[in-house]
């Protein structure tokens, strides 16, 4: 079998202020015509750099130090610009993580596909337009005639990715490189996009390199999977081998950390049916544009219980988390914490309500939720100072809180940009726990983290709940993660509760068709 693309001992470094930093230490890859290869790794593993280097798309700071990139036997590591231009798009195409950012916002998607076509083939405008329309039809965009004239902002994320795919496929390339094509998309959209990619590559006998952080996704869609860590390929194997008998210790850790339908946490089932803590009834919130964000939602949480709130983007799960946290006002409905109706206090005045300390929140993006001008110490001390704590003991209290959240007290003097994603997540948790709340709202606290870090944070949250008798409202789009942490869950769609009940039974035998679809869309690798 002759290789279509073969990367031999590829070394890439980036010029930074601290000198040259090596990003790739001799990467070897090979893909045959019509094959599907997955490249899996956590952030910083060099998986995207490998793809960009192969297409010679590194930014100015990046440099290829050594190795060969063979395209059908021709070394393109030092090929001319003109040669590369002929290659890119026509023979090798690439789609990116954030499709909306990769499209030109001021031109219609049809015009952009026509540009891509005419850049490589001498076509009349009318012929190109006809082909562009056909390309949109192929990626199954509804009403393609109308969408030709649409601008990227008028399309959803999933539709933009389909347009990107249509554009990449337009010149019938021999190899398609997809860099995290579904990250940031809902699971149902992810499944549709991946199915489409799989089908198109099969129909056109096109090779596909799928770059992703999601092991299960790669395993499901690729015949071979390459695992990368810190600029090196640690293992390449068929998915079945990778899952059942991972050879490299890193692969073993990665497989163990990836949440699956059977992974569990030690304390999850210690469900104490304590007295009722939170009662939400008939909660409704209409946005300024008239759409109903939350539609008559009611639920309760007992002390020490953790309730999962699952839904796709636009389901109202984040809105509910903000409403319960009293950061946003509802249009109607009641939010009772113990005996107090905290929903009656306007959100803008809630900072001085006595219940402020009882309800705290951990945000989705740990980095974005930390004041860039505050050290870790300041961030954890802030709620203590505002919500009344013994000021003379503040140093000690903050250090204790940091240790409880698994953050070394040595790091307390650092600013957010000097800390890793996992450390920032721990600060967010320590800050939320500082005022000793009764209810903790967790808004996708692990969505921005690598799987190995996610596993550690989930364990930490699980342990803290058991130790402190906390109640959790856990908001997430990831059913696997919710099932790990929560005994009971609620499924939301368009602001309405479509299903609720025991997590295991919802998983095993979903009652509503929507839940069934969600469960079916989770990438999983069946042995």
């Amino acid at each position, binding site marked *: 079998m002759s290789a279509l693309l073969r990367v031999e001992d590829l070394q890439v470094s980036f010029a930074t202020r601290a000198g040259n930093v090596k990003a790739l230490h001799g990467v070897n890859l090979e893909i045959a015509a019509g094959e599907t290869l997955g490249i899996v790794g956590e952030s910083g593993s060099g998986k995207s750099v490998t793809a960009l280097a192969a297409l010679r798309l590194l930014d100015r700071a990046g440099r290829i130090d050594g190795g060969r990139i063979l395209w059908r036997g021709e070394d393109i590591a030092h090929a001319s610009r003109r040669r590369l231009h002929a290659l890119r798009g026509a023979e090798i195409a690439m789609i990116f993580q954030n499709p909306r950012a990769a499209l030109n916002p001021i031109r219609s998607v049809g015009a952009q596909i026509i540009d891509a076509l005419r850049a490589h083939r001498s076509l009349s405008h009318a012929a190109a337009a006809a082909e562009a329309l056909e390309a949109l039809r192929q990626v199954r965009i509804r009403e393609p005639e109308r969408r030709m004239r649409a601008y990227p902002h008028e399309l959803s994320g999933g539709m933009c990715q389909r347009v990107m795919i249509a554009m990449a496929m337009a010149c019938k390339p021999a190899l398609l490189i997809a860099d995290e094509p579904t990250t940031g998309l809902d699971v149902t959209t992810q499944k549709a996009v991946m199915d489409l990619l799989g089908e198109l590559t099969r129909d056109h006998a096109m090779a596909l390199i799928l770059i992703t952080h999601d092991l299960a996704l790669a395993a499901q869609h690729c015949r071979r999977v390459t695992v990368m860590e810190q600029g090196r390929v640690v293992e390449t194997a068929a998915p079945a081998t990778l899952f059942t008998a991972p050879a490299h210790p890193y692969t073993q850790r990665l497989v163990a950390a990836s949440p699956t339908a059977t992974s569990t946490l030690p304390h999850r089932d210690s469900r104490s049916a304590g007295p009722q803590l939170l009662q939400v009834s008939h909660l409704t919130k209409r946005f300024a544009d008239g759409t109903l964000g939350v539609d008559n939602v009611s639920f309760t949480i007992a002390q020490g219980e953790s309730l999962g709130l699952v839904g796709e983007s636009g389901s109202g799960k984040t809105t509910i988390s903000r409403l319960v946290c009293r950061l946003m006002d509802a249009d109607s409905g009641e939010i009772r914490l113990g005996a107090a109706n905290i929903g009656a206090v306007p959100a803008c005045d809630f*900072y*001085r309500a006595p219940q402020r*300390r009882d309800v705290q*929140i951990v*945000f989705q993006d740990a980095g*974005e939720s930390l004041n860039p001008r505050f050290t870790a110490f300041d961030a954890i001390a802030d709620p203590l100072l505002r919500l009344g704590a013994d000021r003379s003991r503040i140093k000690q209290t903050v250090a204790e809180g940091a240790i409880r959240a698994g953050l070394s007290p040595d790091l307390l003097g650092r600013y957010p940009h000097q800390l890793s994603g996992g450390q920032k997540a721990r600060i967010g948790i320590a800050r939320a726990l500082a005022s000793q709340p009764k209810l903790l709202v967790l808004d996708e606290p692990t969505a921005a983290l690598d799987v190995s870090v996610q596993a550690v944070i989930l364990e930490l949250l699980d342990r803290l709940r058991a130790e402190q008798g906390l109640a959790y409202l856990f908001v997430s789009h990831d059913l696997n993660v919710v099932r790990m942490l929560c005994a009971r869950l609620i499924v939301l769609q368009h602001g309405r509760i479509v299903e609720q009940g025991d997590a295991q039974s919802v998983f095993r035998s979903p009652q509503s068709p929507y839940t069934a679809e969600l469960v079916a869309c989770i990438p999983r690798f069946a042995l």
Partner: protein
Amino acid sequence: MSASGQTAHALYVLRANRISSAAAVLAVLLVLTAVFGPMLTQYDPLASDVAHALQPPDANHWAGTDQLGRDVLARVIAAGRLDYAIAAAAVFLSFVIGAVIGGACGFRGGAVDRWVGRIVDVLMAFPLFVLAMALVAALGNRVENIVTATAIINLPFYIRFARAEVAVRRQAGWVEAASASGNGPMRIVLGFLLPNVLPAMSVQISLNLGWAILNAAGLSFIGLGVHPPTPEWGIMVAEGARFITVGHWWLVAAPGLALMLSVLCFNLLGDGLRDMLDPRMRT
């Protein structure tokens, strides 16, 4: 950012950008000259000496003497003190007031924001120098009024700038987190949002300083600033202009050069600061 990290970054940017470092050195020199001015020259800027009137620059009078025999260099240095003080006071005033008003508007939004926005629009609709002239003319030719007028014409820029910078950060996660931690709106604006906006505003401040100096000198040049015989660059240029046709160029050269250098230097410094604060430079 830690103090040492900040210093390292500043040094890196200065090294990478020679023009900014030259401007920074020049700015320090100019400010030091203004502060220690009287100690640097033996001449009194106000003492006239008609016997030595209108002498070209020589070893005794480095920048020559004027029509009353006063040492031009001593006057330029003394004028620098006044012009820098006016500019600094005016910029400080407009910065503090503008940051607070703009910050409040950006955070609150709504009716207050709309009203303040329209008032700012009205202020900006005037040719600014003409507005400053009108204000000084109405309030009277005094240093305080020049400061007030300069501050008022600069205020709209600070309000708009602070408003925009705060408004984009209002929805940030750490602002929500601050609210969940029990911080009231006042504390969020003053303790969280404005410190984060400050670096970006320092660029505006530096660019504005040069402009304010020019504005103060401009007002004096057309007779709406401080009165003679107080040394001031605008007045000196205006007075010296009468002698330029008869060949006494040094009367305008020294104050003109001082004015040009100051404005150029603060503008370059602003550009340098912008580079220093640009997150894309931080890799």
